């Protein structure tokens, strides 16, 4: 019994020290981690709504959930530029998450893939930047097309799908269409 207490006590002591050390580290890194996340979002938003300054993009929330973003020309909410939203599509081996920006008519202004773990060399080409370009060629094709109707060539659309990665290409187009329809529905909801 006595030994058990001793062992337990020692274990307790060590875990307490470890826990305190971690608490310290957590506090130090937390702001940085959040800043990183914010930075990523910001970058995506800038790509999605290139003509809206960051300060002029506002989230539209339902409770704590961000439904979409609204972008204006100025921070004073003047001159509506468009909306940005995140689409989710099941690809070949992961859910492809994309930030999409559209103008008020629903034409795509910009796109940035946030997350994907597709097959390297095939599905990952949704983010491939060709030599000499400065933006991924696949998502560039979407720009200026109506978000409600994008489709890959195999489904009768104009988006040239990635060779050998039809599933990933299709996932992206379909998710954009679906997310755009959701955006329309969300916008119709009274806030």
């Amino acid at each position, binding site marked *: 019994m006595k030994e058990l207490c001793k*062992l337990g006590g020692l*274990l307790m002591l*060590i875990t307490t020290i470890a826990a305190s050390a971690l608490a310290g*580290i*957590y506090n130090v890194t937390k702001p940085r*981690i959040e800043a990183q996340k914010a930075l990523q979002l910001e970058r995506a938003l800038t790509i999605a709504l290139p003509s809206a300054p960051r300060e002029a993009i506002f989230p539209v929330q339902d409770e704590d959930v961000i439904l979409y973003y609204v972008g204006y020309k100025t921070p004073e909410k003047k001159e509506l530029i468009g909306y940005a939203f995140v689409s989710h599509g099941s690809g070949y081996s992961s859910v492809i998450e994309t930030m999409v920006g559209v103008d008020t008519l629903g034409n795509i202004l910009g796109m940035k893939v946030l997350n994907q773990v597709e097959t*390297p060399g095939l599905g990952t080409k949704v983010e491939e930047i060709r030599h000499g370009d400065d933006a991924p060629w696949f998502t560039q094709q979407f720009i200026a097309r109506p978000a409600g109707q994008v489709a890959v060539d195999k489904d009768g659309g104009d988006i040239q799908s990635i060779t050998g990665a039809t599933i990933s290409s299709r996932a992206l187009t379909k998710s954009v269409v679906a997310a755009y329809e959701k955006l329309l529905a969300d916008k119709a909801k009274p806030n």
Partner: protein
Amino acid sequence: MSVVREFTKGLYKQNPVFKQALGLCPTLAVSNSVESALGMGVAVTFVLLCSNSIISLIHKIVPAKIRIPIYIVVIATFVTIVDLSMAGFLPALHKTLGIFVPLIVVNCIILGRAEAFAGKNGIGLSIVDGLGMGIGFTIALLLLGTLREFMGNGSFMGIPVMNPGFEPVLIMILPPGAFLTIGFVLGFFNWLENKRAK
């Protein structure tokens, strides 16, 4: 003399990957590019260094019965530190390594060195041992990462090194490529060893 020996043994003679076949899970999983191999190697080396020194300091007061849980707590602490710092300062690398950073906790190299070395030696030698083993592990990862990235992507550290006509052997950066590469590398070292033994 023995300091040098404890350091160099991890590099080749007792290389954790090539000679002891330890830590194969992260070796196989994150060696598809030089960049992630390097990141993983550094992370493991850091954890190994810290856990080896702490464990060599406390091993005298730790009863044998609960030494494993205590070692694990120590290791887990440092792994979490690495994980959090990486997320804060190197988010891109953190994203690529993903689950494999937390999994360093169960990497058998670290617990193995704690049991086999740090739990029996003083802090000085333990640091040297941890450093040697960590660098040995990093070298192994880098070798695999270089081979796989070169063959599977035609690049080094993300920079294309082959002419544009090169069609990369995609399988090499996919999971089967890891097994193929490590099989051939281990075979090569065994062949070398056999040749030297003759």
